[in-house]
Structures are given as structure tokens and as C-alpha cells.
């Protein structure tokens, strides 16, 4: 299968009062058509900025300073804002953590849904309304025809996220970027939304790039996982590689810090310290400062070493155990 999306050494910088923040410092990974890939990491690791770089929603102070974003063999980093507008929504759609701020509070749900269909797909208003109601039904909103005329505040958090998903998928995008889509939701509603995303992915073959800090969410729905830390990819592999054969000390530490259901009397094993700031990122491996296995060479950035098909990690410990990739 060919790659739908390929990131090659992506670098994104934000200009702030305190200096340049290097939020993404050379990130490479790919997403195949129809695949569900997770990006997991802690706050400030660059996972959200990576995704916002793909669709170039970086705000006025953010800038892609290097690398390539190939989408269908086309480099998005070279597109004009006008060309990007044609791609956003049509070919790449995005849903965010907080569906209340993503929806316009003074427009009905129906108005917000048909607007996109009329503009992007050239449907008539009548056809757009029918398509919108069908889409609302598909994401599990009961009485869709009545709800169509309601305003966002009349919907609960879970229902709003369903509306967001309906809007995002209404133009049949090839890729859906979901940035912490269930973080603001309760656990029983989270389960409903994750099931919905997964079933829509299987039905429509839309690739999904799911950003989350929750390892449980990753294990439940993703087929491949990218682990990020300090603006860099630490490890990448299938969900089984990451959960059963983690190679990077950061991935290992993250999994070890979770409470074990059967051994509640055991002390937890946290990773000491806290994630690095990206104003003056450390020159070498960003995890070195907290790493229990730190060595002198960690002051230089390690290369990626292959740990099996599709599994790679950036750590000097693997220098003798895998081929550099």
C-alpha cells in the first residue's frame, strides 16, 4: 500500500516573547490509506503542533521551518494558503478536544453542516440538508431532522463531538486528524465516541491520525503508534510492538508508570523529573535528563535503529541491536 501521508524531518517553530520555541524538531512518520495511527505523548511533546503543521493551522507566530509533508505525493509545506484551504475539509479534516469552541454558537448545527457541503462539494441547499441529516444519523444522533435545526448549546459534550465528526466526514476526507477527541468527555461517552470513530474508519476507509496522551485509548483503537517526546519521535511501531516490546527507555517508563490492576499494593514506578521545555531544548536525546540508563553519548542525538518490521526507536542503547534507519 502506498503512503497517504509522509512526514519527512518536519520542523515547526513558534516565535514568542521569550524567544523561539522549537515545538517540532525533525519528525518523520507515515500514515497509509485507511490506517488508524496514534501519536502518544505528554503535554508539550509536540504532538498537536505536528498535526496542526500538516494542515497549516499554526497561528500567526508559528512557522514550518524545515522538512516535507507529502500528502498523496504532494508537498503540503509548499502550498499557498489558498491551495491549503481547498485541501482542508475536503481531503484532510480535523476534530479537536473541545467541541464547544470548535462550533459556532450562534449558528444552527444544520447551517454549519450545509455551509461546508455547499462550498466544498457544490451541492444545492436541499441536497446538502438531506446529506447532513443522513450524516447526523450515521454518527448516532437520534431525531436527526429535529436536531438539525438546534444550536450547539442544546447538545451535550458527547453529542457535539458526534456533530464535529459528522461535519469532518461530510466531504469524504482521505485523512481525519483527531486531536484528543475524547479528553473532555466522560469515560462512558469516550467509549461511545471511540467505537464510532473506529467503525466509521472501517466503513469509509478514512485514515485517522489520533493524538492522545492516554495509553489506554491507543491500545484500544490504534494499529500503529508514534511515541513523541520533546518535539521528536522516540519510538514507532505496531501497537503490539509498543505495548509488548517497547525498546525506548521513555516508552518503557511510560508503560511502567501505569498502575497495575492486580498489584495494587505495589508502589508505582514513575519516571522521575518532568518533560523538558522547548525554548532551549537539550542538544542530545531529550529524554536523557530523566533516563535511568543515561550514557555519555546521550548528549548527542541518537539515530533510529530498526527493531523489526515497522518498529524503530531512537536510542544509543540500540546501537548494537539494530540497523540504523
Amino acid at each position, binding site marked *: 500500500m502506498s503512503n497517504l501521508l509522509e512526514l519527512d524531518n518536519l520542523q515547526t517553530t513558534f516565535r514568542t516573547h521569550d524567544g523561539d520555541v522549537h515545538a517540532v524538531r525533525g519528525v518523520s512518520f507515515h500514515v497509509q490509506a485507511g490506517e488508524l495511527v496514534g501519536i502518544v505523548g*505528554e*503535554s508539550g511533546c509536540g504532538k498537536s503542533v505536528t498535526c496542526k503543521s500538516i494542515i497549516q493551522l499554526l497561528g500567526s507566530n508559528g512557522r514550518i521551518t524545515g522538512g516535507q509533508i507529502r500528502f498523496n505525493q504532494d508537498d503540503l509545506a509548499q502550498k499557498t494558503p489558498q491551495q491549503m484551504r481547498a485541501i482542508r475539509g475536503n481531503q484532510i479534516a480535523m476534530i479537536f478536544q473541545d467541541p464547544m469552541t470548535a462550533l459556532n454558537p450562534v449558528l444552527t448545527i444544520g447551517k454549519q453542516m450545509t455551509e461546508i457541503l455547499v462550498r466544498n462539494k457544490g451541492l444545492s441547499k436541499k441536497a446538502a440538508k438531506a446529506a447532513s441529516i443522513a450524516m447526523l444519523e450515521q454518527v448516532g444522533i437520534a431525531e436527526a431532522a429535529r436536531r438539525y435545526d438546534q444550536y450547539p448549546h442544546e447538545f*451535550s459534550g*458527547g*453529542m457535539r463531538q458526534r456533530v464535529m465528526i459528522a461535519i469532518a466526514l461530510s466531504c469524504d476526507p482521505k485523512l481525519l486528524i483527531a486531536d484528543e477527541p475524547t479528553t473532555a468527555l*466522560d*469515560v*462512558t*461517552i*469516550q*467509549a*461511545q465516541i*471511540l*467505537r464510532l470513530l*473506529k467503525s466509521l474508519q472501517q466503513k469509509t476507509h478514512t485514515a485517522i491520525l489520533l493524538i492522545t*496522551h*492516554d*495509553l*489506554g*485509548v*491507543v*491500545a*484500544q*483503537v490504534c494499529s500503529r503508534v508514534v511515541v513523541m517526546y520533546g518535539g521528536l519521535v522516540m519510538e514507532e511501531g505496531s*501497537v*503490539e510492538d509498543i*505495548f*509488548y516490546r517497547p525498546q525506548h527507555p521513555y516508552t518503557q*517508563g*511510560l*508503560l511502567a*508508570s*501505569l*498502575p*497495575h*490492576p492486580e498489584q*495494587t499494593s505495589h*508502589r*508505582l*514506578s*514513575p*519516571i*522521575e523529573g*518532568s*518533560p523538558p521545555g522547548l525554548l532551549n531544548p537539550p542538544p542530545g536525546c531529550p529524554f536523557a535528563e530523566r533516563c535511568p540508563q543515561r550514557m555519555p553519548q546521550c548528549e548527542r542525538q541518537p539515530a533510529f535503529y530498526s527493531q523489526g518490521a515497522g518498529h524503530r526507536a531512537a536510542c544509543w542503547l540500540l546501537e548494537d541491536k539494530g540497523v540504523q534507519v
Partner: protein
Amino acid sequence: MSEHNAPLVSVRDLRKHYRLNGGLLRKGVAVKAVDGVSFDIQPGETFGLVGESGCGKSTLGRAILRLFDITSGEIHFAGQEIAQASEKQLKPLRKRMQAIFQDPWSSLNPGMTVQQLVAEPMQIHGYSREEQRERTETLLYKVGLRQEHLQRYPHEFSGGQRQRISIARALSVRPEFVLCDEPLSALDVSVQAQVVNILQDLQQELGLTYLFIAHDLSMVRHISTRIGVMYLGKLVEVAPANTLYQHPAHPYTRALLAAVPQPDPRIRNLEQATLRGEIPGPTSVLPGCKFCSRCPHVMPVCRREEPAMQEIAPGHFAACWLFKV
């Protein structure tokens, strides 16, 4: 729900109703945030309180500390009735019950140094200057911060470090009881385990009793002795932590646990998480069981009459008609 020892905290039929302003002509509706809750907390235990947003768990925790006036019911703290106590009567008790809150960014005054923040409660409760200084240093060491941090301001610390400052501040006046209101929710995964370990170490060393409110069910299991599950202002189940997870009785508890995404790709449990619908608004008035609108086992009696809490196994309580003896 009597147990062997005299409980440190004892709550009977506690209610906290808020009146929503209905506007000029309409009568306001009552929000029954906590609606008839009874339970005990034994000295030295950690009582976990779980439930989805809006279930009333934070209101219940704060009502026990008497951070506001309650509507009705009894609260006994160390044998004293405090539900109707005046602010003056409460003051000597305040130092015996302290709190740690969710957001370490808003719970610490940004204009105060760490030293001032930790010493302030001691100042209020009449500790000598000498004692204030001594205890501040000891506590800082206990929560894993260093002498050089004393003169710094909150913005210079990470989320995990701020939560350590909050812990030192809460413990400065030697409380017996600490309300931990979602103290981990704002923290990164790798940092949560650090804070849990500190809380557990200090509990052992100082014989503390915790009321631990959270929505992360796996961390609650790890830290709690017993757990209470809340739904729409009611406790629906109380059991020892492991019993609750291994033999959940109430259909809501079962649904809640089934929805937790397990960090293990072999246990893809989300397909089994089948709870439909959403938590009704807290203003809705249902005559029967509050969960009957979502319950997969709903019976006619559930819609008519509210089930009472009863002991279904030693130490295991549930309020559900399925267990009516």
C-alpha cells in the same frame, strides 16, 4: 454502614441543592448536586469517590469540609457534628481537615513564594515563626523539593512540582483528613505516579485519612482502600477497592468499569462497553432510580421507586432493585 472503629468522617443523608435562576418570570429549578448521601470514612483509609462529571462528587467533598453551607443532613468529623457549625466553631477544626485541588495553576497564589505559600496556613493557625520555618523546610524535603526552591514563585515550577507545593501547604498544619479533589487530572501520565507515591508515603508516615476524588478509575483502584460510586447526586455502590473491580454489583458501576480503555491491545474491551445514552441533566426529576434511563436491566419497579442502599455482601453496599432481598 457501621464498621468496627469509630469513623473519622461520618455523613448522613447529606443534601446540597442549588437553585438555578429561572429569570424574571419563571421559577428557578433546583439542581440536586448531592441528594441524600450517607457513608463513613475510617481513620487511616483512603476512600475513593468516582463518577462522571456532574455526578456531585466534588460538591460532596467540599460539603464535608464545609466550604459552603449545606441544604440538610449530618456531617460528623472526629465525633463532632459540623453540618450546622458556625465559621467560628469550625475554625479550630479547619486545621484538622485540609484539601488539595485539581488545578495547580489556579490553586496557588502567583504572587507568593513557595515559603510563603507553605507557611500561610500555619500563620493563620498561630504557629510560631520558628516553627513555620522549620516545618516548611521539612515538608519541602518530604515532597521532594529542595531548599533552593523556597524563594521561587509558582510560575517557575512544572505541574507536578506545583502539586507537591500544594501537598506541603495542605500538610503544614498537621491535618488528619485531606480531601484530594482530582489532584492528578492536570498532570502528565509519567508525573501522576510521582504524586501518587508521595501521597501514599505521607499517608503511611503521618497516619493521614484521604478522601480521593477522581475520574481515572485505574489510579483510584491503586490508591483506595474503599470506593464509592456516585451517579446524579447519589451513592449507588460502596465496596472495598478490589471487590468493586472484581465483583461490581450495580449496573452503573459495571458499565463504568467496562468503559475504561485498558492499556493492553489484547484486551480490546471497548466492544463490550455498551452503555447507551448520556447522564441526564441534574435538574431532571425522576421518581425512581436515577440510572433507570440508561440501565440495561431496567424493571418496572425502577421507574416507580428509588432503591435504598443495602449490604449485599459483607462491606459491599449497593442501591439497586436487582439486589433486593
